[in-house]
């Protein structure tokens, strides 16, 4: 084969693979948009299994969307009992085996959550996007989408989206080596026209105050120093998408919450100053794709949480500094 022919052949292959990637990105983008809309606006009930390391949980989900807004009830049906209720005004997490019951009730806070787009983005230069064939899950055919990271600061995703509605039927978060960190897969799924209100009743928790005493706006004497904390190193592609001081369930004092985002993965940085008598200690936890690191630095509690590798969390945490 002559050299010219070889070059032409290589060029042809390169052009084809480039257009294949470009096509995939566009198709993936359409599917992901569909998924975001479906998970919010459809009525669906079903059971799925969530595998996290060597533990697995079978959960029931009931999701409703009607004139009362979006409502969701999630409960374990095997394993330790845990429940999450969520609607436009509150989020209640019941985790009895951990002695925890967390309540967030604040319409203002929750509507502010959407100041940036929290759908998966296909605009990131730090991932490649592929269509990876179809699978049959819970009686539905779904399209497999692979989101592959280009560096080690983030995880990859393998999603399977129901062909017609775009509903997420299977999700795998994988590390750099392609090993799954966590997996969610539906065993049963129904799409009724309406989901009964009874599933969303939180009456037994109505008497509870909000975690921060029902206050809408945080007001305490620890606010002045929070803005002085600065981020240092950030993984390439991650940007600050939100930086606000908010009321957080489980904290009596205001918490500064910085959201970092690369279009696919999100990282939260929490900074708070303990009130008198509050004692915290450092901890590092891993659970599936989720890594957390909490420490005490210069009298503040700093925490970094996200669905990214532990090394990324650690590096961001290490870069946090208090400006003079």
């Amino acid at each position: 084969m002559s050299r010219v022919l070889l070059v032409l052949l290589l060029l042809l292959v390169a052009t084809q693979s480039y257009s294949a990637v470009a096509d995939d990105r566009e198709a993936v983008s359409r599917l992901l948009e569909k998924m975001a809309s479906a998970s919010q606006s459809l009525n669906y009930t079903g059971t799925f299994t969530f595998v996290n390391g060597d533990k697995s949980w079978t959960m029931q989900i009931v999701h409703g969307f009607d004139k009362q807004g979006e409502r969701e009830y999630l409960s374990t049906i095997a394993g330790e009992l845990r429940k999450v209720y969520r609607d436009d005004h509150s989020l209640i997490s019941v985790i009895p085996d951990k002695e925890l019951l967390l309540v967030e009730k604040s319409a203002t806070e929750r509507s502010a959550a959407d100041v940036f787009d929290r759908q998966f983005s296909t605009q990131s230069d730090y991932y490649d996007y592929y269509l990876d064939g179809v699978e049959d899950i819970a009686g539905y055919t779904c399209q497999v989408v692979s989101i592959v990271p280009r560096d080690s600061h983030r995880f990859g995703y393998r999603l399977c989206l129901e062909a017609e509605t775009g509903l997420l039927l299977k999700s795998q978060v994988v590390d750099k080596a392609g090993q799954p960190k966590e997996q969610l897969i539906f065993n049963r799924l129904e799409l009724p026209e309406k989901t009964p209100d009874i599933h969303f009743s939180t009456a037994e928790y109505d008497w509870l105050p909000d975690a921060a005493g029902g206050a809408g706006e945080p007001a305490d004497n620890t606010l002045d120093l929070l803005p002085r904390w600065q981020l240092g190193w950030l993984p390439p592609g991650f940007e600050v998408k939100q930086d606000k001081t908010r009321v957080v369930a489980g904290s009596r004092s205001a918490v500064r919450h910085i959201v970092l985002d690369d279009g696919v993965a999100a990282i939260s940085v929490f900074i708070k100053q303990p009130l008198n008598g509050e004692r915290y200690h450092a901890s590092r936890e891993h659970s599936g794709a989720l890594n957390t690191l909490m420490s005490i630095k210069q009298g503040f509690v700093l925490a970094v949480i996200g669905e990214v590798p532990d090394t990324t969390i650690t590096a961001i945490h290490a870069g946090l500094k208090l400006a003079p």
Partner: protein
Amino acid sequence: MSKGHENTARSSDEELIKRVKAGERQAFDILVGKYQSKIITLVSRYVKDPHQALDVSQEAFVKAYKGLATFRGDSAFYTWLYRIAINTAKNHLVAEGRRQPDSAIDVQDAEQYADYHELKDTATPESMLLSEEIKLTVSSAIKHLPEDLKIAITLRELEGLTYEAIAEAMDCPIGTVRSRIFRAREAIGKVLAPLLN
């Protein structure tokens, strides 16, 4: 990640222990230097008086030296050392007729995430002064480091990451990490030297 560090840490500790057993007492001095701050911090959680905490820590190291014959390397050296330190502190409290602490201190917790706030209040004024000066100098020196050196040394010393993990976090070869950490230490050491001399 810190686990990885612990695993590799055994090699040099074991090497030093071998030398101590062969009669090279200096090797134990290096082990003392390596674990002194962690042991004193641990003991101080039991024994609040800083002078007594130093004495008890000293006693723990001497016991460890004398007991090295029984250290077979089944656990990491520091784990074994910490147990001796905790026990020595407990015995001290009993001897003092004081109430024993009512909660266990997790060995790994004590090593990595000890709560130092109480200790700061109980340190002696003279040691406090020099130590605070050292801390201020180091902190100021770190501020003036180039960003890549600063991140590398912080990930190593504060987070206890292995070079491999740092290389992954910083997206660079392990050799570069090794060089950055060394350069950071040298730069900080230069600023610190007048204070120590």
